């Protein structure tokens, strides 16, 4: 428990640095003096618009999505006792991806608030499926992972199919629907904020019990930890957070997978400290990944999902080899 303040403090510093990078650097150059006056002074100057309407919402969106995904991954991994638990991988974001595709195809016409709510509800469907399977007798981690991966592949296929059918894709780029923070404004991320809060608050009562869940359903029931209910709440919370994240940025992969493992490396296995650390850790990782995506080939951009995959996929392989 002692290391936690140190780690959180270090992450906070990294966060501030990342925010500075996010607002100061970009295709349009801004020196320190202009930056400070743009941040502090109000007014309609182009710099002010650049900082507050373009760069800042993108930074905040990355932080928000990162925290959502990090916590969701942490909850999912301990609730399913599966080290490759990840809300995107296990299909929890799948329903939200379908909602996103329907909106892009113009088949769903609703404001940002409606889209976020619908995405969260759709994600809970996937979460429900996983929760159902996870509490079954004789469900090995590998089998549950396969079910989750199948669900997510199904959702991705449906989303891609919807977009292809609507001919939203250009002839050349029938890309997989990846995640992105490009052109995200305040109106896109504000509706997700309350769901971030709801997801966290929902998870708080069960986080402590997740430690006992690691012993198995029989023992944790004997300790009074109510494994089935605890697992259902944790997975539901993971679904809400995952759905909100997808509504803002699409499917940004591997964050939910990486963050809990890194957190465990930093502060040990007590799920309560992992949970707390996952919030800033997820934010920092996603923020820096988006900065890389945005700045490495300036003014061109690479998809943020590519950056997270480059780091996260090798990690997943390593984890799967060691543990599953």
């Amino acid at each position, binding site marked *: 428990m002692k290391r936690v303040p140190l780690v959180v403090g270090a992450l906070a510093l990294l966060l501030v640095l990342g925010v500075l990078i996010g607002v100061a650097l970009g295709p349009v150059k801004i020196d320190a003096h202009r930056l400070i006056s743009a941040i502090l002074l109000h007014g309609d100057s182009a710099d002010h618009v650049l900082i507050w309407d373009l760069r800042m919402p993108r930074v905040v969106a990355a932080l928000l999505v990162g925290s959502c995904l990090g916590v969701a991954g942490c909850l999912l991994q301990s609730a399913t006792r599966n080290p490759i638990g990840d809300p995107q991988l296990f299909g929890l974001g799948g329903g939200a991806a379908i909602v996103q595709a329907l909106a*892009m195809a113009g088949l769903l016409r609703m404001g940002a608030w409606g889209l976020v709510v619908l995405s969260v509800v759709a994600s809970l469907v996937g979460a429900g499926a996983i929760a159902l399977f996870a509490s079954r007798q004789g469900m090995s981690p590998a089998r549950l992972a396969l079910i989750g991966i199948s669900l997510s592949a199904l959702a991705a296929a449906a989303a891609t199919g919807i977009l292809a059918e609507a001919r939203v894709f250009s*002839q050349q780029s029938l890309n997989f629907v990846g995640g992105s923070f490009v052109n995200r404004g305040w109106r896109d991320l504000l509706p997700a904020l309350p769901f971030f809060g709801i997801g966290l608050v929902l998870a708080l009562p069960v986080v402590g019990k997740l430690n006992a869940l690691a012993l198995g359903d029989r023992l944790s029931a004997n300790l009074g930890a109510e494994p089935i209910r605890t697992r259902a709440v944790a997975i539901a919370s993971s679904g809400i957070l995952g759905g909100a994240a997808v509504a803002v940025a699409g499917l940004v992969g591997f964050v939910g997978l990486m963050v809990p493992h890194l957190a465990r490396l930093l502060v040990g296995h007590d799920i309560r400290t992992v949970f707390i650390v996952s919030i800033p850790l997820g934010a920092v990782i996603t923020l820096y990944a988006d900065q890389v995506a945005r700045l490495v080939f300036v003014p061109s951009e690479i998809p943020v999902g590519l950056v997270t995959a480059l780091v996260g996929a090798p990690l997943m392989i390593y984890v799967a080899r060691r543990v599953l």
Partner: protein
Amino acid sequence: MKKGIIILLHLLLLSALLAAAACSSETASTPTPTSAQTNYPLSVVDMLGRSVQISQHPTRIVTTHPTATETLYKVGGTAVGRDSGSKYPAEAATLPTVGSAYKISVEAIAALNPDLIIIEALTQQNIIDSLQTLGVPIIAVRATSLDDIDQSLALVGNIVDRDEEATQAVADIHSKIEAVQGNATGGKSVLILIADTNRIIYAAKPESYPGTIAALLNLSNPATGLPDSGPYSGFTLFTSEQALTSNPDVVFTISPAPPPAPRLSEMLLQIPGFNQMTAVKGGQVVELDPFLFLQAQGPRIADAAEEMLRLINEAAE
């Protein structure tokens, strides 16, 4: 010594193969100039620089792209089959279809028993191999510039023995463009935008078809000189920061996806940076018909220029 000889033989073999490959690869040569009357068999060079033999006057032509269809009909030719995206002219719109320009059905083409197939050079190169199994001559046309359009018309006119119509068509297009240019006052700047899926926006450079049309009208384009990026050639990735610092008089948007997919002109109002542009705030955002201005590039370039001029003048009011 023995090893050295073997290596030498391998090198000779390799260079022979390379030479053979080089000979058969496409070289960028211009299509053959046309004469007043066509004699068959005819040897032509298409817009991909490929040498093609036409053994007799083609009577059953299949076109696989709106550019090909409109070029053929502009010189007075007719087809027996088209791609599902070719909607102009009206006579062509009723022809049987052979799949979409993005996904041509070789079987459907074969079923029509063609003696000539006309494809589009930029986007349909990859189907040449599968079409060759039909044993029918394949001609590629292109329309990325006015020169391209002239040459494609001449080429097709030559092949279907309508050289005079082709020359006339070229002249018509040029005179119409001159007329439109005469009416254009110029001096305005226009940004032409198209969106990919996840809100990634590209701007048309003067090298693109819509950019070419804008350049014909003497409109300046903030995307000039930017690097080619993204999957569309002639388009450049346009970020919200660039949008913030550019100030076109009018913004044209192209939304290729059919309704109910949202129109880019509406989406721009929600995208930070773009919604700050004076033109967007002032409502000078106009949707261009994606068919006329992007998908059916070709002989109707003069009509497109006329339409664009009309839209500019409307927006300026």
